[in-house]
């Protein structure tokens, strides 16, 4: 709030400033209060939305996490029971395992591809705008249900992926029905949407001063060396941002797993990602207390991973400002 108010006052005509300078000590206060009130009023739809649709449900879900609640009964306080059953539940463990695998494999692959393509597109060449748009497009449509269906058919028996693989003598069959392969089908879907981090990388690459490369080239540094010693450190803040965003995003995977598995999160729980299990427990089995506890565990896990990433940035993220 503070800076915003200053900005408004600075932009006021000088005439008014001088005129109101004298009675400022008396007249300011009610005026500012009124301005604040106006600000809050303008924000009121958002505040109401936040309180009713975000904060309220969050507090309620925190309470439900410690209760036995099936949507129909009055929630019964059970302390940490939901959490202890969770740790003993093999399907919960399975969902953690599947999600971790998805995050650990999918996120780095996606970012590597995004960075690679961004570096290719950073050079000026003909049709650049077209390529950027083309690579970005999957990020816009990738989360849709219809793409999930397309994915399902691409990775079925005797569909294009199966045929290509078989052509090279590697017979796996469709990935969709195969418990060992289906997760990679989801990984492929997220990697395909590398356009969003790519655009951010592109912006980061544009910020690297040309002189650095010129100087390095003069000193005889090859392309790899330039990438390692100039590009990577200079874009490390952008890289950090992308890692953070994509990791958090990956943890929340739901739609693609739900659609590709036709709502079963199978076969054999192979696509039972965390949110999918949460959904099954909450909305199919009506174990809302358990589902709420699961949701809070997810929040804690994501917060923990974020904290670790933030802690690690001292070691590898370079901010130009620090050097000054």
């Amino acid at each position: 709030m503070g800076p915003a108010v200053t900005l408004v006052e600075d932009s006021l005509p000088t005439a008014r400033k001088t005129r109101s300078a004298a009675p400022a000590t008396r007249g300011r206060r009610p005026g500012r209060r009124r301005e604040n009130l106006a600000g809050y009023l303008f924000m009121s739809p958002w505040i109401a939305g936040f309180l009713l649709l975000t904060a309220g449900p969050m507090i309620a879900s925190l309470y439900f996490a410690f209760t036995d609640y099936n949507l129909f009964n009055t929630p019964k306080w059970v302390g940490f029971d939901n959490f202890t059953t969770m740790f003993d539940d093999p399907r919960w463990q399975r969902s953690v395992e599947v999600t971790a695998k998805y995050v650990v494999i999918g996120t780095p692959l996606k970012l590597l591809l995004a960075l690679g393509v961004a570096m290719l597109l950073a050079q000026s060449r003909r049709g650049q705008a077209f390529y950027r748009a083309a690579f970005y497009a999957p990020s816009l449509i990738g989360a849709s249900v219809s793409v999930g269906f397309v994915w399902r058919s691409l990775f079925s028996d005797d569909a294009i992926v199966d045929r290509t693989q078989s052509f090279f003598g590697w017979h796996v069959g469709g990935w969709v029905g195969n418990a060992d392969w289906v997760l990679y089908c989801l990984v492929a879907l997220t990697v395909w949407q590398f356009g969003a981090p790519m655009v951010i990388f592109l912006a980061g690459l544009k910020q690297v001063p040309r002189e650095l490369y010129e100087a390095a080239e003069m000193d005889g540094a090859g392309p790899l060396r330039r990438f390692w010693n100039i590009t990577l450190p200079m874009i490390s803040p952008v890289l950090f941002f992308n890692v953070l965003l994509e990791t958090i995003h990956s943890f929340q995977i739901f739609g693609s797993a739900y659609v590709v598995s036709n709502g079963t999160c199978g076969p054999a729980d192979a696509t039972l990602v965390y949110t999918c299990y949460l959904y099954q427990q909450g909305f199919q089995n009506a174990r809302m207390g358990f589902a709420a506890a699961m949701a809070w565990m997810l929040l804690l896990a994501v917060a923990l991973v974020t904290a670790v990433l933030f802690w690690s940035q001292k070691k590898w993220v370079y901010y130009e400002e620090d050097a000054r």
Partner: protein
Amino acid sequence: MGTSRNVERRTILKAAGASAAALGVAATAGCGGGSGAGDGTVTIRYSWWGAEERAQKINKTIALFEKKYPKIKVKTDFQTYASFWEKFQTQAAGGNPPDVFQNAVTFLRKYDKRGILLDLKSQVQAGNLSLDHFRAGVTKVGEVDGKQLGIPVGSNTMALVIDKKVFEKAGVEPHTGWTWDDYFKALKTIHDRTKVAGDTGYFGIMYLYDLYLRQNGKAFYTKDGLGFDKADLTEWWADGYGRVKAGIVTDPKVVAQDFPKSSLSAGHGASEFTWDNFTVRYSSEGDSTYGLAPIPTMDGKHTGQYLASLMLSASARTAHPKEVAQFIDFMVHDPEVGTIMGYDRGILASTEQYAAFKPTDAVNKEIAQYEADTAKAGVLGTITPHPSGADTIEAAFLRISGDLGQGKTKVADAVKQFFTESEAAFQA
């Protein structure tokens, strides 16, 4: 200064007014509006699960109803089976279930326990709904602890649907009173001679295991729990998995890919246990000819079969119990409704509708013949109870057996997991 302040205030007031109005509109929309209009017309909400085909038929029957009862309007909604119950559960929890809806025995106790279902006895006594003229015993399916919670629209029974062409090619002929040994031998012959798996995964079907247990003097459920022990299930699943390995039961990888289509209609299996009225589905999904065969037995006689039923139930919270009862009455008794619906939801339950509909196509004729034969064979027993949680357990049974079939779980672990999940489902 003064003027600019005023302008500001006016703008703010306008903005505030607009947002208040927006919230107001949203709030009204959220309530779904009243269901009664000034002229005495009432609107009732009716939802069901099923495919587009069923929806078209039902819409025709609703048009008939609205013609006869011009003061009652019917608002409809339908989904697939799983989505229907997810939505219903949320609506019911929010105190806003549809006034009248399709129901099945698996859900009766669950929603009775939660106070969602209207006991239709009072409407029967008030003369708005008749329980007369039903085929023998079918109304029993909708009874729980002396309450009439559902009125059957059609009856069905578990059956074995076979791909006639494959069976013929393999030279296998199912017959009344055949045993499980005969059946599994037939599957092997089919696989040896045609390379098609004989069955699409019998060991994951709760309703079939129920029949098997009934043949052995048990049942899937008791009044409040499971009617079998871990040793029983271990044997059932270990045998099932062995048959997947042997190739006589369809590879669950293939079943998962065929889904939501059946592996029988996809040509990846030669037979499948399901409800007899579902035969219609196979004919429209697949290219072969499909027929009904008897359920295998232990002793050459008892199949464990019983008549189940799809029902219409009403919400205990409906504001229009009388109109809802009239609606149900019309839907189950009106002969014209019977001719429109056919055997889509099972063999028509009331005698008026049963008499009115004469099947002309081969599939519906076969369904009628099947239930007539089953009844004549005297194998139909009484339905055993389905406690609250049966729906969750049915899904868990199917899912865990699928894991098992993929070789992802050992039989012992699968059995343990199933018993743990059942325990939780009964308590929920």
